[in-house]
């Protein structure tokens, strides 16, 4: 009896799901945007912010970009690289979308870039910072509305040298994003005359830092540069402060260290200086209007991820306006986007030859529950786009 009821329930659920998917049948003339973002797992909140930002811009344009109504198809990428190729192919082959937007996780984004390169579908990356997306993997139909891992790292290298630090230790997870961020930092810091004494790493996603904090204390560098995000960032900042190092060896990081984590980090994060292409108190009219509209629509405060989603929609809008709503005219689309200045809440930016934002990287300091701007670490910073040929 029990199993039968269970089976009935399962069949019912399957039917309901089938109805839900066929209900949204494609109408002629609509532009299909495939959102491949994390809806579950560690990055779920980031996926929601990106989707909200994207939809907010489309809504502001009356639901249309380039004269075509926008229809969404969603896939949860679970931030899982092994499933990435299957997931992106669902959008390309099953749903036959016109444009793909995604994602947060760099490993997943790389698989998406590969699929976009092979299929020729338009891809806009609204977060993943993997250098290669606008480096070795670059293509005329791939754009990024966020940043490259290299950018905040490089900017911080220059900024820390300018603040008088001669030696530094770096610490990050041993994975691509961490490596790239540290490489960017190293380039900026050494170019400005600094010296990196040691690169420390922790296996991803381990969060036991005590051994390496002890090592930092025994090396005694002028400062520490770090790249952590999410739960790892919270724990690292708290452990660093609890180990008593915060007062003696200043801690710096790429902005993700203190973004969306301040409530959890509390007093331990107070005063930390980070670099990112967005901050909480930019106080320009564009940003104020965006924040107000976002808060009104979603009853949430926007963050850097929401801005990146918003700008992904702007990039799509600019390209589609130039091609009269035809996403297959790739050369015209790319030419229009390259020429354009994107009026972002973060401040206006353009796209580089390899389609990565050329943008100001802000120097920010944690004050209360905000990342306040204290200056610009690097003006109009261009990612070198190494390995990009197109």
């Amino acid at each position: 009896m029990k199993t039968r009821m269970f089976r009935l329930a399962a069949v019912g659920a399957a039917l309901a799901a089938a109805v839900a998917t066929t209900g949204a049948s494609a109408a002629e003339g609509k532009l299909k945007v495939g959102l491949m973002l994390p809806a579950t797992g560690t990055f779920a909140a980031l996926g929601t912010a990106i989707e909200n930002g994207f939809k907010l811009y489309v809504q502001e344009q009356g639901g249309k970009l380039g004269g075509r109504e926008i229809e969404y198809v969603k896939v949860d990428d679970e931030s899982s690289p092994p499933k990435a190729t299957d997931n992106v192919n669902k959008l390309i082959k099953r749903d036959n979308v016109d444009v793909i937007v995604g994602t947060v996780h760099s490993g997943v984004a790389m698989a998406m870039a590969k699929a976009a390169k092979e299929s020729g579908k338009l891809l806009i990356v609204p977060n993943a910072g993997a250098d290669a997306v606008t480096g070795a993997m670059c293509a005329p139909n791939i754009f990024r509305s966020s940043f490259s891992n290299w950018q905040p790292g490089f900017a911080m290298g220059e900024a820390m040298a300018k603040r008088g630090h001669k030696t530094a230790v770096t610490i990050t997870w041993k994975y691509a994003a961490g490596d790239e961020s540290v490489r960017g930092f190293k380039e900026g810091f050494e170019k400005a005359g600094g010296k990196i004494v040691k690169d420390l790493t922790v296996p991803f996603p381990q969060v036991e830092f005590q051994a390496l904090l002890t090592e930092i204390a025994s090396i005694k560098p002028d400062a520490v540069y770090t790249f952590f995000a999410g739960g790892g960032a919270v724990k690292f900042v708290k452990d660093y402060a609890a180990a008593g190092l915060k007062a003696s060896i200043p801690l710096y990081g790429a902005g993700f260290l203190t973004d969306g984590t301040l409530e959890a980090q509390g007093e331990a994060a107070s005063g930390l200086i980070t670099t990112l292409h967005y901050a909480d108190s930019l106080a320009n009219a564009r940003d104020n209007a965006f924040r107000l509209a976002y808060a009104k629509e979603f009853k949430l405060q926007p963050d850097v991820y929401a801005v990146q989603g918003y700008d992904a929609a702007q990039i799509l809008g600019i390209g589609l306006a130039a091609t009269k709503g035809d996403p297959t005219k790739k050369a015209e689309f790319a030419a229009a986007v390259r020429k354009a200045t994107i009026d972002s809440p973060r401040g206006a930016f353009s796209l580089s030859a390899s389609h990565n934002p050329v943008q100001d990287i802000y120097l920010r300091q944690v004050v209360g529950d905000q990342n306040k701007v204290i200056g610009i670490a690097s003006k109009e910073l261009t990612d070198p786009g190494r390995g990009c040929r197109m």
Partner: protein
Amino acid sequence: MMDIATLLVQCLNALQYGLLLFLVASGLTLIFGIMGVINLAHGSFYMIGAYMAFGLAPIVAATFGGGFFSTLLVGVVLAVLLGYLLEWMFFSFLYEREHLQQVLMTYGLILVFEELRSLLVGDDVHGVQAPPWLAGSIPLGELMTYPVYRLFISSVCVLLALGMWLVFTRTRLGMMIRAGSTNREMVQSLGVDIKFLYRIVFAAGVAIAVFAGMIAAPVSSVYPGMGNSVLIICFVVVVIGGIGSIRGALLAAVLIGFVDTFGNVLLPQAAGVLVYLLMALILLWKPDGLFRAG
């Protein structure tokens, strides 16, 4: 190379991390080690504990006037109820089944708990404050300080290990549980209500996992997916220690603490695999783990 002072601090780090691992894995020692159920949802129980530390504190403060220990107590009581209910609804059907079915069901529970967590609390990262009287730190060397709360966790671990060991080896209850894990039918025919007994053991296992999550929350912070990250290392602890041995689990946890700490410092390139290498070597040498119970 390392000077003596740094070496000593690293040993303290290693020991402290090892004890923390034991705390996190101890609930699994009961459910997997002694009852023999492959419980992948162990990490979820740990996560529930951490979220309880975050979510219950304000509620407890409002109703009972707060306090670290009253929050812990409320959490543990809720956990016992949860464990009791889960055993009655799901796990009691699993004892005689194959391991694969246990894996499937407990994996399903992970998904359910993660989704519930997302619906109830959201996907943000949260922090939990250590109680003020444990929030200080002790100076250690010229630059470093050591948080008192970490030392508190270590002593809780030692007490827990001692308590579990005493119950299992020195009491009548422990004797019945051990007998039950060897031969269910025999124990039942001797007039022991084995079903009820196992329900209690399971509830205790869940309660200890939740307790570990609550105690560790101020150090580990609270975030989605935190249970999955501890799950594998917990199995490693139980397997190295020897299925069902509390002594073994404690020794294994401390061993892993040392290998991991010094691996991170001396061999950072291989730090991710050293623990598993250790497990492989120990299992080659002693296929049943360090101490096989019964």
